[in-house]
Each structure stands twice: as C-alpha cells, then as structure tokens.
C-alpha cells in the first residue's frame, strides 16, 4: 500500500526533510505537527547487556530484536529477526522479538521517512539495516572476546550463538554482552555474502507461533488490561458524514456498569467498567443525526455515476504513443466495462485502541501501523506535542490495510473520548475503545467502488496496437497527508497502478482516471489499486489471446519478451501446473500474472462447477519472484493467504448501501471465505539474488483474473461485475 511513498522519499536524504514534506501535505482538516516525536529509544542497557537500537543481548543469553514494523500476521517480526540472527550467527532458540516504541528518528520506515508499515516494504526497507545491526553486534562481541582472551579478533569464530577460539576458549553471547557494550561501534561491519547465510533463504520458523496456540495473555490490543480501565464503544452515524444532533442517553445510563456517555464530534461513546454493559447500553441510546454533509445515495447510484464518468475523457494518468491511432488500425478491438464493489477488510480482530491521557501526556496500546501519523493526530486532538504521545505497538489480529489510516481515525476517536473524559473533570483512567464487528463492517474505510472502461486492439499477428483505459473511483489519497507525494495533477497513483506500469508491450497506451466524490471513506485494501487493475488487465489479455487464436500462456510469453522476471514466474507456474497437460473432465484452467510492489506473481487456477452451478476453485499453482527470499516458508504462507483473501472477495464480498446506509453488518451478510472454499495451493518461490521485495500483498491480485479466465475457458464469457455471487457463480 504505502509503497507509493518509496519514490518521493527514497531520494530525500535526511528523514527529517521527508517528514516535513509529508507534514506540509496535511490537508482535509488534519493537523500534522511539524516536530518529529521525541526519541524514547530502545531499552536502557542494564549491567552486563549490549543494548542497541535494533538488538538487545542480555546476560541470560537471549537476543531480542527490536521490531520497527507492525506484525499483523504477515510475519514482519520473524522476518526482521531472521536478518539479525543470520548476521549475528545466533540460534533460533535464543532470539526474541519486541516492538519498537514510536520514535520516527530511529525507527522510521526507510522508504516512507516516517514510522509505519505497509506496501509490502517491511523486509525491503530493512534488509540492509537489520543485517547491519546484526553484524554490528557480532563485531562488538568479537572485539570484546578478543580483548578478554588476548587474541586477534580475526581468529575468533562465531557460530550458533557461541564465540570460540582455537585455544579452546569459548563464550556465549550473554557472557560477552557486558564487555561488548564497552566496545566502540564498528564503522562498517562486514556483511555476509549470500553463500554464508545460515537462515536467509533457508529456514527460520516463526517466533510468534507458540504464543498464538496457547491463548497467551496480552498479545493483541483488544487483550490489553490495565488497573481501573474503562471500556468504550461508540455509536457511529448510520450514514457517512453525519454528526450527532440530539442524544438521549437516559436509558443507556441505567445499565449497570455504565460510567458515562460522551458526545463526540462524530459519534456518541458509552463508557462502562466492562465490555458487555457498554455494548448493551449503546443499543439503548436515542440519537438523531445531522445529515447535512452525509452521503445519502445508494451504491447503485454511486456505481452509475462511476460508469458515466468512465464513459467520458478524464485526467491523464499515463500516455505513451498514440492509442487512438493504434486502435483505429487494429484488426480486432475488444471493448469492455468492468465494475468492482466496495470491500471491507474485516480483520479478525476488530479495531481497538487503549488510551491513558493525564492532561499532559498520552499513552496508547494498539496495533499501530502508522505510529508517526498516530502520534501527530493524537497530539493535535489533545493539545500536546507529538513527543508527549507514547505508543505501545501490540500484535494485530490482521489488518489487510485497515489499520493504516492516513487520518488515524481510531486514535482520533480515542483521543476525543479521553479529552472529553478529562474535560468533565474526571480522574485519568485508561480507556479501551472497542469496535464490534458491526462497527467494522458498517464503518467505511473500504476498498473503493471502481468502474473501468477499456478498449484494446491487436493486429493480425496478435500484437497489441493500442490500449485505452479509464478508471473511475474515489481517490484514496486526495485529502490525506500523503496527497503531496502521491497525487500529481489530480491523479492518485494508486487508482490506476498496474495499468500505468503495464509491460504487455502495448505499442500505444492511454490511461485516464476520474476522481469521484463521496463521504464514504475509502482506504487501501491488500494490494490497493491492483485489486481491480490486475483483474481488468489480465482478463483483457485473455480476451485478446482468444481473439488472436492463441493459447493464453503462449500469448503472454510473446508480449513479455522484455520483462524477464514476469516471464519467469509465468513459465514456472504454467510448468508446475501442467498447463499443457489435458485436464480431467469438468476441470478448467485460467492463468494470470501480475507485478505489484516490485514482486512478480503468476497463478494458475483450476476450477470445477458444483451441481448448483457455483464455482469451486480446486487448485492454485503459484510462482513468486520477490528477490532474495529471506524466509521462504513465510513467503509461501503469504502467497497462500493472499490467494485466499483475494478469492474470498471475488466470490461473495461486496458492501452495498441503500439511501446511504450500509446493508451488511456482520459475517452473516458479508460472507467470508471458509475452509470448504479453500483450494489446494502449491507455491514455488523463485531463487534470486535481486534485492528482496514484499510478499504480503502481491499474492492477492492474480487470483481474481486467474479464476475469471478459468470460468471463461469453461463458458466462453468473462465476468465483468464482481463478486461472482451476483452472477450465480458463488
């Protein structure tokens, strides 16, 4: 998602400058402070320890890796630990992980310039940094041992958590940590060559598995407990953009356990001593809403508007050559319109934030994904400086983009509650704000609804002669603090990503976008624009292949001669799937290949139809090239999960609205993928020495078009309006 920040920020040398630029982009009522939040830093070193920003070696011989990224299941914590452990030559058993405090100077995402996680960047931006951190700690341990033993440092070997010398002397890291802390930092510690790696590209099992199989306490934000804590649930407006007008809380206040009811700028909060009374009492609130600025249209009207927009010229997002002329000279032109619904992320852990505000400082406990933005938003609401905002990042029960809000709205809401609580003269108490599933599904911040209109032409030999493409949706980034970087001349680069950088040798391409306006808040959803652009491009390619009378894989091979990595995953997936082998009766195949977040993924879907005509995806064969595969098993896991996440959405998921109110509220209507829907999945990871890229999102985009192409292989027609359930196919 936030990979889009890479381009502008990667070139801006000092992080401070990047942040100031980001701050200057604040808009839409957001007040982003110009100060970097103060350094709280890593834990203070105790006697006998080596404490550095990213590595903390204790006397008990544990190695704690300080993780600057949120781990919401994608495995970032284990990934960063893999990098440190390898360079340090630690053992898997001695490694622990701990989330970093909010401190952008020290823990910024090197691609963003602020502290945050997204865009499948955790490994990509940290690869050198965390390896260097491991190598630095190792050099200091070696220097300390050399001094202690009176031998040259070059004669000391380090392996499996142990320092040793030919003389027979040995020491554990823990034994040498205190002495190592007195050593000076090496200027440029030597990093291993790939041949020397012991974990990278091999195996380093997840460090969070065990605690997630025993119901360990205090893991997730929603599990946070504190002395004297209150629980708050908030009644949000039934229509986006509405505000509370009148509030009758008399009945709610009667519920035993309810402590207070507070009216907020955009909702009404019920505070209780426990969760259940808060949920019950909220149902008893009587609220009237001011809908002056609310969205009151239904989703069908919104879609009609998008489709009308896509029918007329828009803002130029990318132009190369003369697409109009190319289409005029084409032997065959395929023209199509597509539509995609709003989608909720629905992470299993609903949103939650705990805040303790004492009037001068604020402390948060939450699965924070954009710590720096969270600090600034909280500070603006509370009238303090960002350095007075501490954030304890906890493990998150999924995100898929949902916890990375450019407006930090859950933090904003919690801060408003704490401020109102303090403003009423109450003694400070920790307040945990909990969203229910209904709040989540009805709460907005959806993958935008999108309409596409596309025309593509081929000549008699099957070469693409012209490609004209329009995308209409609400921009994710206009009005956010990221607008200054990622929106150019009104074009949000996430809207048409995956089309603008297409490499199908389109001789002439013309991409336009339209920015729709609605009060429905929208957000990046696992793979962002690629969620819909890959679907359109990859089904259009199959349609063109059919028009050219060519096999879908062979047709793509012909177009990808200058894109070797994309070609590589395409061929690998096709080979492993037995693309040219005959299929059993009733089975059909489809393929798609797409690059997103600089990672290349091809997927071959094999489907059948149930007796009721619905699609059963039997098997998916996936090939992924994400550069150096740091933790191959985790990459496989992310492909499996990314495929499942994308499949669930195309099968049955859509958020619809009637007169501005969301029609779905829970998993009984927003139907999630279940185990009986899950295909068999085979993942092949391409060995590579290229710089590592991401794995969290890129598995998602190809599955939709691969399934759609398989359906078309069976039925001869491509589905152009998702989800498939609308067509009786799921």
């Amino acid at each position: 998602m936030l990979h889009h920040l890479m381009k502008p920020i990667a070139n801006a040398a000092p992080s401070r400058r990047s942040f100031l630029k980001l701050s200057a982009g604040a808009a839409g009522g957001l007040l982003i402070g110009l100060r970097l939040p103060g350094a709280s830093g890593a834990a203070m070193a105790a006697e006998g320890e080596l404490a550095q920003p990213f590595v903390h070696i204790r006397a008990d011989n544990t190695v704690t890796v300080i993780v600057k990224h949120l781990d919401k299941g994608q495995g970032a914590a284990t990934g960063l630990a893999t990098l440190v452990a390898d360079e340090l030559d630690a053992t898997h058993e001695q490694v622990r992980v701990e989330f970093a405090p909010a401190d952008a100077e020290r823990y910024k995402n090197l691609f963003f310039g602020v502290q945050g996680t997204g865009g499948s960047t955790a490994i990509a931006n940290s690869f050198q940094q965390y390896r260097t951190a491991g190598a630095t700690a190792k050099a200091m341990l070696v220097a300390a041992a050399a001094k202690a033993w009176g031998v040259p440092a070059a004669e000391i070997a380090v392996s499996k958590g142990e320092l040793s010398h030919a003389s027979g002397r040995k020491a554990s890291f823990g034994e040498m940590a205190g002495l190592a802390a007195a050593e000076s930092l090496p200027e440029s510690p030597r990093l291993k060559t790939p041949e020397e790696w012991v974990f990278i590209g091999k195996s380093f099992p997840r460090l969070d598995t065990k605690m997630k199989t025993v119901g360990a306490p205090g893991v997730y934000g929603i599990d946070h407990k504190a002395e004297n804590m209150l629980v708050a649930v908030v009644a949000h407006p039934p229509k986006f953009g509405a505000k509370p007008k009148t509030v009758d809380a008399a009945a709610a206040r009667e519920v035993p356990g309810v402590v207070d009811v507070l009216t907020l700028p955009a909702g009404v909060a019920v505070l209780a001593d426990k969760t259940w009374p808060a949920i019950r009492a909220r149902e008893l609130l009587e609220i009237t809403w001011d809908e002056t600025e609310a969205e009151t249209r239904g989703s069908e009207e919104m879609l009609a508007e998008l489709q009308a927009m896509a029918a007329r010229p828009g803002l130029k997002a990318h132009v190369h050559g003369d697409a109009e002329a190319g289409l005029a000279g084409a032997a065959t032109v395929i023209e199509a319109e597509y539509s995609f619904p709003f989608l909720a992320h629905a992470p299993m852990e609903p949103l939650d934030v705990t805040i303790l505000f004492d009037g001068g400082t604020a402390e948060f406990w939450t699965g924070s994904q954009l710590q720096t933005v969270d600090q600034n938003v909280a500070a603006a609401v509370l009238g303090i400086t960002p350095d007075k905002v501490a954030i304890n990042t906890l493990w998150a029960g999924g995100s898929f983009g949902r916890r990375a809000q450019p407006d930090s709205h859950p933090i904003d809401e919690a801060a408003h509650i704490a401020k109102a609580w303090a403003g009423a003269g109450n003694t400070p108490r920790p307040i945990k704000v909990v969203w229910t599933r209904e709040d989540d599904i009805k709460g907005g911040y959806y993958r935008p609804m999108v309409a596409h209109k596309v025309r593509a032409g081929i000549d008699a030999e099957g070469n693409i002669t012209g490609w004209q493409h329009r995308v209409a949706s609400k921009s994710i980034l206009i009005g956010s603090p990221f607008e200054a970087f990622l929106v150019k001349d009104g074009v949000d680069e996430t809207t048409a990503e995956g089309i603008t950088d297409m490499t199908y040798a389109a001789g002439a391409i013309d991409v336009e976008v339209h920015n729709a306006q609605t009060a429905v808040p929208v957000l990046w959803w696992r793979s962002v624009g690629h969620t819909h652009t890959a679907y359109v491009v990859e089904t259009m390619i199959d349609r063109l292949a059919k028009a050219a009378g060519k096999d879908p894989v062979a047709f793509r091979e012909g177009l990808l001669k200058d894109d070797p990595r994309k070609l590589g995953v395409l061929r690998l997936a096709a080979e492993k799937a037995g693309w040219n082998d005959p299929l059993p009766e009733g089975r059909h195949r489809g393929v798609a290949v797409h690059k997103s977040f600089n990672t290349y993924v091809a997927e071959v879907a094999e489907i059948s139809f149930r007796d009721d005509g619905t699609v059963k995806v039997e098997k998916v064969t996936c090939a992924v090239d994400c550069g150096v595969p740091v933790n191959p098993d985790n990459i496989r896991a992310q492909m499996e999960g990314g495929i499942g996440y994308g499949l669930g959405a195309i099968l049955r998921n859509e958020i619809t609205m009637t007169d501005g109110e969301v029609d779905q509220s829970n998993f009984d209507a927003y139907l999630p993928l279940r185990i009986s829907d899950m295909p068999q999945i085979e993942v092949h990871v391409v060995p590579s020495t290229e710089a590592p890229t991401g794995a969290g999102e890129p598995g998602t985009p190809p599955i939709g078009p691969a399934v759609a192409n398989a359906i078309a292989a069976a039925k001869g027609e491509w589905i152009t309006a998702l989800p498939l359930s609308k067509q009786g196919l799921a």
Partner: protein
Amino acid sequence: MPVNLTINGVSHSIDADPDTPLLWVLRDELNMTGTKFGCGIAQCGACTVHLDGMPIRSCQTFLSDLDGASITTIEGVDGKAAEAVRAAWQELDVPQCGYCQSGQIMAATALLSETPKPSDDDIDAAMDGNVCRCATYARIRAAIHLAAEKMEG
C-alpha cells in the same frame, strides 16, 4: 444470584448480568483473553470453547444457562488430541495473525477427539464455522491431518 460453573477444572462463582455472554465472562470477569471476540453472532468461531467436551460459541452462550456447567478454554485444553493439535500447528507454522487460532484449535481438538482420522470432508464439516481472514486454511487442514498421525504414533 451468582452462577457457579467450572472453567478449566477450577470452580468459579460469577455475579454478573445473567444475559452476559460467556465470552465476556471469560475475557472481562476472569481475565482469560485467549478466547477471542470476532463477530458476536456465532458466525466466525473465534470464541469457540468446549462445554463438556463439545465445541460451542461462547458469544452466544449466556451466563444464566451455565449453572453447573464445565467449560474448557484454550488456556486449559489438554489431552492427547489437544497436544497433537498444538504440536502440529507449531510444526507447520499455521498461524499468521493468529487471532482466530484459539478457536481453530478448540474446534480441531473437538474434531479429533470424536474422529481421530478425519477425512477432508470431515474437516470441512467440523471447521467451516471457524473463519480465518488470513486464510491459513490450507495449513489448518494439513495440521489436522498431521495431528491425526501424531495421535496414532
């Protein structure tokens, strides 16, 4: 009137609104947060616990119905099937975000206690009520088969 029930072998007397779901009794009254809140309407299985060995959704099981009941949660589940399930989950690194996995493990343990050698269809039938938004389903299936092997061996 307090409700008396046994949780993980320990007797508790709970004095709360009789309509309180067991889920919130566990999480808020007893500080046992291993059982998760996912949907509140018995559609996702994150809150699965055992009532006399049978998997139930604690978000739709109410305190007033639990006088004398014996409940087992993720914090307390043990025995041959539970041990095999946990070992298989750890061996295959099943969890991603992990939030649903308490419920998955409770459901899988109940399945293997009843059906030590489940088929894929048995797994679908027993596990379809447990949602995993990370879609770790392929590994859940593999881990149940692996746990079944471990129980034999």
